[in-house]
């Protein structure tokens, strides 16, 4: 009995980890999907939005400002940086092919990364967070870190707010409509510039929010910090179905569940290959559902 109870407890613990990890992936994947759905752009520079937001936290910390200031600053920085990228790089490329957009965003990503390297430093910089995040609560038999709780709660709140905005406000409905059929939405008299700018601003704000939790987990920032999370978000978006907003969120949690399960079950000798196994599973999923989990084949554009 004891063994079973322990196994059950372990499983719950892992599930909480998967939810916290998945919610970070979901924030990033959702931002990617929003921009993709209105512009057909898979934004490689999305990871740099995370990095830029992380650096905003670092600079404010360096200036002696408290965490309570760093949080809104990170979110605002993400949103503003996304708007700047949109205006300077992507707007002149409106109507360009998928590849042109993709490669441009790839170049932009390299540019921002190396810009941070040249202007601030190529090395890691420490961003210590409130001790609070290292503590955990005991709920019955479970020990749950505050970081996991705050991450999950913030992501859930962000997703609820975003859903309300998209479903209840005129601007939000316009964006949902644009995600379905951008051309038709234009014909309905909704300004494409406003929809695209809003999509970028939201995706940047979500990246800024994700950056807070990523920095909290690592305790440092570096110019390439957005890269690995971005890769996960890419995979999440593909699992969920490229262009589907809810698919991106589901994909984030599915990917996290795969990673956490492999983490818990793979024997030690193959643990280093965990990432490869996770992606292998994703490839198998895609073999059976090439359009992703949440896109019906008939709906695919």
């Amino acid at each position, binding site marked *: 009995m004891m063994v079973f109870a322990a196994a059950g407890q372990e499983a719950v613990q892992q599930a909480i980890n998967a939810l916290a990890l998945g919610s970070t992936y979901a924030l990033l994947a959702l931002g990617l999907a929003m921009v993709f759905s209105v512009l057909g752009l898979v934004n490689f520079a999305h990871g740099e939005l995370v990095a830029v937001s992380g650096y905003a936290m670092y600079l404010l910390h360096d200036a002696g400002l408290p965490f309570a200031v760093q949080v809104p600053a990170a979110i605002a920085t993400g949103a503003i940086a996304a708007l700047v990228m949109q205006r300077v790089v992507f707007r002149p490329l409106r109507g*360009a*092919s998928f590849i*042109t957009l993709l490669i*441009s965003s790839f170049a932009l990503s*390299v540019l921002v990364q190396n810009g941070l390297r040249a202007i601030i430093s190529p090395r890691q910089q420490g961003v210590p967070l409130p001790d609070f995040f290292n503590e955990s609560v005991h709920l019955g038999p479970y020990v749950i870190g505050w970081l996991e709780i705050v991450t999950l709660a913030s992501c859930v709140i962000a997703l609820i707010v975003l859903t309300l905005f998209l479903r209840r406000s005129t601007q939000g409905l316009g964006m949902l409509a644009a995600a379905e059929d951008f051309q038709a939405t234009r014909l309905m008299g909704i300004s494409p510039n406003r929809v695209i700018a809003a999509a970028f601003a939201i995706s940047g704000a979500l990246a800024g929010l994700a950056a807070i939790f990523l920095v909290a987990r690592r305790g440092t920032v570096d110019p390439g910090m957005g*890269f690995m999370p971005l890769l996960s978000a890419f995979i999440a978006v593909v699992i969920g179905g*490229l262009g589907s907003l809810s698919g991106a969120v589901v994909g984030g949690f599915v990917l996290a569940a795969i990673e956490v399960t492999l983490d818990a079950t793979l024997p030690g000798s193959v643990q280093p290959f965990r990432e490869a196994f996770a992606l292998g599973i*994703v490839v198998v999923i*895609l073999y059976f559902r090439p359009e992703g989990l949440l896109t019906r084949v008939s709906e695919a554009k």
Partner: protein
Amino acid sequence: MSTLARRTLLGTAIFAVPLTAIAFVANAMASPADMRVVVNFMISLVLVLAIQSFSGNTGIISFGHLAFMGVGAYVAAIVTIDPVLKQDDLAGLPSFMAEHSVGFIPAVLLGGLVGGLVAGVLGVVLTRMREGAMAMATIGVLVIFFVVFDNWEGITRGNTGIAGIPQSTTVFAALVFALLAIAACRAFCESRFGLQLRGSRSDPVAAEALGSNVVRLRWVAWTLSGAIMGVGGALWAQYNIAVGPQQFFFEQTFPLLAMLVVGGLATVSGGVVGVFVITIVFEVVRRMEDDIGIPGLTQIVVAVLILVVLNRRPNGIMGGLEVDQVLARLRGRRRVEQEGGSQ
């Protein structure tokens, strides 16, 4: 002579002249540092054209091709280094591989063969996807192979990488393979497969309706380009004499894709021109970077160059034309001007 053969020969010959001249000049007078640039330029031609043969014909960008370069490079490393070294460093090898080594050409062919096999297997899954999803999934391919190269201690020596590969790729060998790559990619482009693929690039559904099996065509292009990439990797390993996982990951993907899109993804000539331009920009800025002391300046300059080129010329420098087409147009224009003048 068939159109395919004529265009392939002409398209290759136009580049053969300057490339051969570069090789001879470098062989006669280049310093060791300049020689490195020239040989790596020739090898980059093979690598970029490998990517071009898939992406240019299908219109689907791949971020995963460096995985096949890595496969070719590791295969070449494992089959060429001295068996004495293998016993210490590569304990995980099966005995027939640990006890024998082969020469330059077999190693290159093996690199291509294994690269093609690996690409062929992965391609079964990848080519079923839609264009955008496939491009994203190739990123997953790159990460999978990086993880394997980085951790398969007994075969790849993990993070340390494999050193002690004999340096067998000469400038002339690199030249020959670069020209072969140009000819092969051009022939593929002009072949029935290439024509059907390029037809499907603008409208896959219409191409299917006209009887093209787009998934199968993409699989053929993907596998072929994986094999060429493997050849390029094997050449690269046998010139740079050491291989490690970081050399087949994102940082190295960027310059190769930059070469391809700056020159023009759609044509073989675009790939060649792009490799030439980016190699020169890289070398000039890299030398300046040491003087000025800004880390990452080369990457910054190349990134800005890509953004500007794509903004001004979305189809790259060559604008979607082959060099022989450009020459034919110029000749045509001159004839028109002359006729116009004589009236």
